[in-house]
């Protein structure tokens, strides 16, 4: 048994040490205000403090800490993207994730289970070949695997050639991982707070104050605060907040649903994704199957669940694993996905000076939490986006310098 727990046992009976800071008074001025206390905002706060010595930071959230998409995603981490820019970026994220538990002194339960993207058509095989080649070129472990290898990597998978959409092969991405999403937010929050960052929950930003094209502060439900710089990291509400700041984003916000089953004894090691069937699944540390599918077909700012989505998920899931027919779905929920035209995020400067943006995270935000936080912190601190995130600037859309990730990002998150 690890020493930490023995210590806990010996202290049992005493009140535990407070890890997350208690609610505090909102001060009238901060150097930096970060809007959104999700994984991204908290990570940025942490790296601002750690790497740049900027600790006069307030992280503001309209709800509870990590209660937005951080709490709603399906926790998959991978870097098997299509564009070199994307692959490099997410690969850096994976490298940060690997050391994160130790770094934050908080176990985020990061588990490299391997990630299989199934191909049911020759077109899908072709895209996978492309991904595999780009990945390998950039030093990311991705390989095409045939049916024999697939049967070894995932024995319960239905490889019946007579299926309606028989599986032809797969892209195997060994570093593919899952983690405890909440723990990432909590770990960053605790570590940031330890360095002096203030976290204000239930503090909704209602307006952005600017002067001569430069941000000067934010209006909140708890009063006005002045600040030198603002970072917005509010996946699901990005366009609304940008509108408050006075600019538009090429984003459509659509609900993205997910569900879990009751706990089952472990039988599924890898994360399994089928782009053609639009479903994916992994088995959590608790034994639940965490399942997802396509985004809802229309734009909506609502976190409601639908029956249709769940029905649409079940049939293809059973095509992959027919024996799950008797397994029950225990809970379904929805997050909000800010979809960009090229399925890549938007990071960097905005038309408002000193107002920085971290948005467009569609269905791929969780896996970028550490790297985005680190690079956005650098952007806020220096006023200049560092080269790994420079290609993801907002300006690329006007110039059609898009980073086409549709083939690697549309499902499988």
């Amino acid at each position, binding site marked *: *048994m*690890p020493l930490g*727990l023995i210590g*806990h*046992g010996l202290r049992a*009976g005493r009140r535990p*040490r*407070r890890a*997350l800071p*208690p609610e505090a008074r909102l001060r009238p001025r901060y150097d930096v205000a970060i809007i959104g206390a999700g994984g991204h905002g908290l990570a940025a706060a942490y790296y601002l403090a750690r790497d740049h010595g900027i600790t006069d930071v307030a992280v503001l959230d309209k709800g*509870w*800490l990590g209660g937005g998409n951080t709490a709603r995603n399906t926790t998959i981490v991978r870097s098997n993207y299509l564009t070199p820019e994307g692959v490099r970026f997410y690969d850096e994220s994976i490298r940060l994730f*690997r050391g994160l*538990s*130790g770094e934050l002194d*908080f*176990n985020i*339960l990061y*588990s490299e289970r391997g990630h299989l993207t199934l191909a049911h058509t020759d*077109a899908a095989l*072709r895209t996978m*070949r492309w991904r595999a*080649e780009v990945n390998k*070129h950039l030093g990311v472990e991705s390989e095409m695997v045939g049916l024999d290898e697939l049967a070894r990597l995932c024995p319960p998978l239905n490889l019946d050639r007579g299926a*309606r*959409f028989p599986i032809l092969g797969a892209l195997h991405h060994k570093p593919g991982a899952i983690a405890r999403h*909440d723990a990432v937010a*909590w770990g960053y929050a605790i570590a940031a707070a330890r360095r002096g960052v203030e976290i204000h*929950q239930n503090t909704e930003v209602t307006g952005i104050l600017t002067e001569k094209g430069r941000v000067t502060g934010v209006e909140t439900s708890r009063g006005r605060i002045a600040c030198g710089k603002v970072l917005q990291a509010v996946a699901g509400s990005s366009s609304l907040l940008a509108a408050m700041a006075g600019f538009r984003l090429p984003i459509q916000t659509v609900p993205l649903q997910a569900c879990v089953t*009751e*706990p*089952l*004894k*472990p*039988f599924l090691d890898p994360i399994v994704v089928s782009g053609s069937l639009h479903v994916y699944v992994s088995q959590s*540390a608790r034994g639940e199957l965490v399942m997802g599918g396509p985004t809802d077909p229309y734009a909506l700012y609502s976190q409601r*669940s*639908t029956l249709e989505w*769940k*029905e649409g*998920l*079940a049939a293809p*899931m*059973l*095509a992959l*694993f027919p*024996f799950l*027919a*008797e*397994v*029950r*779905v*225990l*809970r*379904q*929920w929805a997050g909000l996905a800010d979809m960009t035209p090229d399925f890549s995020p938007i990071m960097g400067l905005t038309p408002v000076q000193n107002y920085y943006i971290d948005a467009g995270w569609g269905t791929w935000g969780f896996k970028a939490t550490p790297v985005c936080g680190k690079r956005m912190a650098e952007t806020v601190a220096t006023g200049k986006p560092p080269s790994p995130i420079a290609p993801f600037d907002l300006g690329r859309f006007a*110039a*059609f310098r898009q980073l086409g990730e*549709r*083939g690697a990002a549309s499902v499988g998150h």
Partner: protein
Amino acid sequence: MTGEYRLPPAPGERIDRSRTVRFTFEGGEFEGFAGDTIASALAANGVSTLSRSFKYRRRRGILALSDRDANTLVQLPGEPNVPAAVREIEDGMEVLGQNYTGSLERDRGAWIGRFSRFLPVGFYYKAFYRPSGAWQRWEPVFRARAGLGSVDPAAVPGRFDKKYGFYDAVVVGGGPAGLAAAATAAGAGAEVLLVDDQPAPGGSLTYARFGVDRASQEEELRALVAAVEAAPNVEIMTGAVCEGRFADNWLSIVRGRRLHKVRAKTTIVATGAVEQPIVFRGNDLPGTMLPSAAQRLIRHYGVRPGNRAVVATAGRDGYAAALDLLEGGVEVAAVVDLRQHPDPSPEAAAVAERGIGVVAGHTPSEARRRGRAGRVGAVRVSPILDRGRLGKGGETISCDLLCMSAGTMPAAQIACHAGARLVYDRTLSGLRIDRVPDGMFVAGAANGRHGLGPTIADGRRAGRAAAQALGLDPGEAPAAPDDSGRLRNHAWPIFAHPKGKEFVDFDEDLAVRDLTDAVHEGYDDIELTKRYSTVGMGPSQGRYSATNALRVAAAAAGRSLDEAGATTVRPPVSGEKLGVLAGRGLEPVRLTPMHHRHVEAGARTMVAGDWLRPAFYGPEADRDRLVEEEAAHVRSAVGLIDVSTLGGIEIRGPDAAAFLDRMYTFAYRRQPVGRLRYVLMCDAAGTIIDDGVACRLGDGHFYVTATTGGADRVHREMLWHNAQWRLDVDIANVTAAWCGVNIAGPRSRETLARIAPEVDLSTEAFPYLGVREGLVADIPARLLRVGFVGELGYEIHVPAGFGEALWDRLMEAGAADGIRPFGVEAQRLLRLEKGHIIVGQDTDGLTTPMEADMEWAVRRSKPFFVGGRALDVHDRHPATRKLAGFVLSDADAAAPEECCLIIRDGEIAGRVTSAMRSPHLGRVVGLAFLPPGDAEPGKRFEIRRPDGETVSAEVAPLPFYDPGNARQEG
């Protein structure tokens, strides 16, 4: 013998004593009666441990005898987590407990319970991560203990299906309130569906006790049920669970293996209430249950729940339960009332009359088990000083049944799915449903009503309200409903013990301290408390923990309960099987009219969207040879390919040409009737999304083809755009109405001439890119002279019903010319030799016409077309890539896989999109994206194969075959 605990027969029981059912549990043989559930049959046989708990592997048995009880989930072959409390036994059923190592009785993993002090809430966040990577080694240890039941990958799924329903009012819950509501709404003329999860309606009336004398309540039950059964406009669905309520009263109701999807104009929630446990050390020992569970055992299954009972309560329900226990042959040792001064009630008086001791102002403070068996053997009863504090004194009472409840909370799930919230109400000392949306009415115990009269009256009120909402006349309002029956809960039935194990959440093995620690560590918002501790996240979804967890968390956070609020409730209510959700899993396959001819000819098919298409004809082993032969045959003689899967869209109306001018990049206004023209579609970003041809059949009539996979999208885009443009055109997707073939090769004209004598096929009369309508094999046909494969050829489109006849007649007519069918693979090769792109293969999600070297297909002078403005923007920025033809330098080299990278100076410079060995050229040809400067003929580059080897290639002019196009235009 079907159990030592079986009671003599009594009215109202659900078992058929004439039919004995034999089953096994944990390998032991047991008998029960038809109608017994797994849990009731085992209880009749004195088995009290049904499974092991999630974290500490403690013995667990019946808590609520409901399907939402984590403690009674068992394993059947191929089916995990089966609710033992509702699944009826069948002959030969093999039942196992869950979540143990070794056997249920001797769980080798149960040692962990003794180390609970070292496993505080969230312990896995606090350790196991140093040194870096340690979790990868620890995780398998945790993983081995995770989960409850097991799946069997070899299990064959059964059949499931779905049914739709439409009602004026759906009443969820067939207890007294639901029955009254259904009868009232139906009386006003509403079409009503009454859904109840039990085998028979009646709810609490069938097992609970309202008053000292049960006779009047049985009368009431008969009357309520009779009223509903007599109404022709009420449909009663028993054994069904309303699992979810979605937008606009769209209900998911599961009955057995069928999903009923029901649209209700109004919903009446009469789901009753759930008893909330008292929290004390050992409150999870088998034999400790909610009073309603004991009452159900007695009334529904004729099972004596124990020999000697202690009833702990905070209201008159407990006294009623004590009376039921006495009737069920259980000795009642004492009634422990948490209230200092219990209200007098007839039930309490009856209990006193029967000589049962009542200990007021006391609570169970610790349940202890008897010997090695897991079951409760005694309970320590202590005086309550104030909130949660216990005084000295008290006594220990031996018992093997401990019924305990401190009140109830509404079964609020369906209301909460609709947007209602659970709020803490100080006057009730409990949770109440608030903010019920329009079109939904909450009645009975779910609405906080208590006692039979008030519950029924509230049901009638809800039924009237629903009828009024439906615009029906419910008649005279009865006298103001009796509002006296308000439930009061005990405000603080939580008694922490220095040694812990006083469980708040039975699913997750969470004791009081786990929750207070979570709050003290800073997870003080109730949503954070829930996530950090996982309270309420197990199979019972917080039904038995919500009230107490809220109390503990709020107190620890120093917040008042009103501020704390409850966590979000999400569907489904009890869990929907994936099979039920999937239904029959319809996966339609689209087959062309000629499909069976392909199969007869030995075709290997491939999936193309929803379609199956012939890839080539012959055995898989000869694939490469067959594809080459089929292609060579088109070049030298005549071949026939089924192109029915191509999209077909009719555009008719005065604005037809103007519409195409906007949808596609090319120009169509001056296209002559009787000619066809290439079409290329871009999206608003200037990305190529589809191509095909547009045949002008009349001034205001075009027949446009689309790619197999893109047809539906093209049609959708057209409708979407014209919804804004409002051009005077009619757009019809006729893909399925038409089918077609392409007959191609130098002898195609001779073949066709034999069966199309009325069509002048001469080059002069019917030139390349011409379109004609005429009879082919006596079938009215559209003939298109196209050149996709690079030979003289005709696409012949006929109404789908004639497809097979057309195919047969062409094969017959071409016999003399050696006609041979060819598949998609040969067509890919033929088109590649001609340098034609396949959208989606030679283009990707960002490819512009300029990048695809198809500027020729874009009429930039047009005032507008979709994507045009984007292309203008693209023009202002330097190009980054261009699609070009290439040949491999080494004539013997094998074709690189499509999507291999082109590497220059160690960097990615491009990508191969198509590559095949050309029999005509005797070498590998292909298309590739290259930097614009490198896309000039003669430039050399390196392709890297997946194995890391590189192969040299050289840019070559397109097309590779017949550059003058003499063959296709001849």
